[in-house]
């Protein structure tokens, strides 16, 4: 019986994509490195330019894009992000 080697889990923040963003990304969920919401979203835009075009306008969020950090709406892109955080991004949408 050998002692099991404990591997440090490589946890990164998770980005969840919704509505039309899914088809542009080809997926619903990605792990994305970054210490702030801005860093995470910029990295996402770099990896998936089609998403970047919808979500970012210069270096700000495009109007009516909804970004939440662990369920809380984000307006300050410089909010810090840690490994277990979930960043959710919705393109401009509405309903009743």
């Amino acid at each position, binding site marked *: 019986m050998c002692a099991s080697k404990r591997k440090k889990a490589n946890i990164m923040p998770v980005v*969840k994509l*919704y*509505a*039309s963003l*899914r088809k542009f990304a080809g997926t619903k969920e990605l792990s994305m490195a970054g210490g702030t919401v801005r860093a995470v979203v910029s990295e996402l835009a770099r990896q998936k330019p089609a998403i970047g075009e919808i979500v970012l306008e210069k270096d700000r969020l495009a*109007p*009516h894009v*909804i970004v*939440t950090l*662990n*369920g*809380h*709406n984000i*307006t300050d892109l410089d909010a810090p992000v840690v490994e277990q955080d979930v960043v*959710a991004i*919705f*393109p*401009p*949408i*509405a*309903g*009743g």
Partner: protein
Amino acid sequence: MAGWSGNVLDIDLNSQTFTTYPLDREMARQFIGGRGLGARLLWDMVGPEVDPLSPANVLIFTNGPLTATGYQTSNRFSVTTKSPLTGTVLDANSGGFWGMQFKKAGYDVMIVRGRAEKPIWIEIKNDEITFHDASELWGLRVFALTEKLGQNNNRRNVLCIGPAGENLSRLASIMNDRERALARGGPGAVMGSKNLKAIVVEGKDRPKIEDPERFKFLLYETRKLLAASPLTSQALPEFGTVVLMNIMNNIGALATRNHQQTQFEGAEAISGEELTEKYLVRNASCWACPIGCTRISKTGKVEGEGPEFETTWALGAQCGIDDLPAIIEANALCNDLGMDTISVGSTIACAMELSEKGYLDSDLRFGRADQLASVIEAMAYRKDIGADLADGSLRLATKYGHPELSMTAKGMEMPAYDPRGLQGQGLLYATSNRGGCHMRGNMIGLEVLGLPKLIDRFQVQGKSSFVILNQNSSAAIDSLVICKFTNMGVADEYFARVLSAVTGIQYATGEMIKVGERVWNLERLYNNREGFTSKDDTLPPRLLTEAPGDGPSQGWVSHLEPMLKEYYRTRGWDQNGVPTKQKLTELGLVNLLN
């Protein structure tokens, strides 16, 4: 008269006769049409002594001056009555094509009084009004009946009740154009109590527009605005209203299992994304609407309109159900039977909780998608356990000793948005004149979507002025009558200008919204007269005292009390929530109290 057709059709079911007379112009100017005009007329006609299911109650169908002008979404119409579910003033609002046709038939208002001795249906072809025997039609479900009476979207439109209305279920809706609904508060039961099975209209005349040049310009600008807004031009057509499922779940404001939680682990499975990917056939729209939010969905068993977000929530998360095809089929069943999906779903959820806790002897359990169809049928026919559920969750929960487990405000089941995640929304439900309703001033624009801008959903101080503005604006729009989704791309100032261009009467934006304030206060007076007090401006104890244990809304309850105090003051009401004489004078309502 421009805009309005200028005519009231007054029907007496007892004698099967009718009269027509001119619409009171001053009343029209003050209340415009739709919900506003309906409220004003109901005030005169139906007082506290009237049982909603008695012949003395009335059904008032109303258009607005914009209806059938061709302005975007100028297809909507209202029905106003005293609600058999809540006992409050009730207006229900629907889209499709019937309202447009009714206006073309030459009427702004149709009042239906009394009760027919035997089931009848009414046919309206401009000034030709015919009463037909409906004994062969009684018992028919909505889809078959609509087809049988010759539904043609653009030319001949059917409005009717299904078995639920016939059986006086207080959750019964009035359906039009097959799958559009005047849903909430039980108007279908009122129609059923009058032995009125259907009203079919054909019309010939488009309304007169006072300033066609200006109207054309505003139509053009509205087209540009709706096309430029990603909400109305992309998101709603592509995903429909169900797109909200993941959004509301993500922020911890999706009521789940009879409001026991604020997040649903099955949300993804019943989301707009899932619907579009697996079950959507195409989108569709009402008359003169470029948005096209309607879903046409298909499962192995059904194909038809819907489901909307609220429906998917009520029969889904609220019941702990994550089976989307079952929900789609249950929606079709509710439409065919003529029932309000929100109240149906939330009442079933209440029954599920009562059963799980042993207060109600039934096998209903959260998550049991297989039970939906049979319990909905039972409700429409008042059979077995359906008899207990047919009149809503408050009567059900009260009967079994636990009224606090009914997730209602003033007796109407609340929709999906959990107030513990949205402070403003809680204030809205508690103060809404027809009960727990989101369409009388929805706060999710401001508190979730950032429309026009994002405000803090947990902020309490100052929330009341946003709620009040939304309520007043919504009341104005419900009186025009225009679809609120247009409002998501087009600001109120455009509606005021369209109203002015069509009618020739100049309404500044602030004046149009003041009409909404007038309507709101009148509805409040009506409810006060019925015996409602500030004690009724409240929410179930669960929302005031039980905070979610996890999720983004963890630890939050609805802080209703301070918001409500501020609300009364801001509305110009006294501390008991009664409009002051000063406020009523300002709104031109003070003479109603004499």
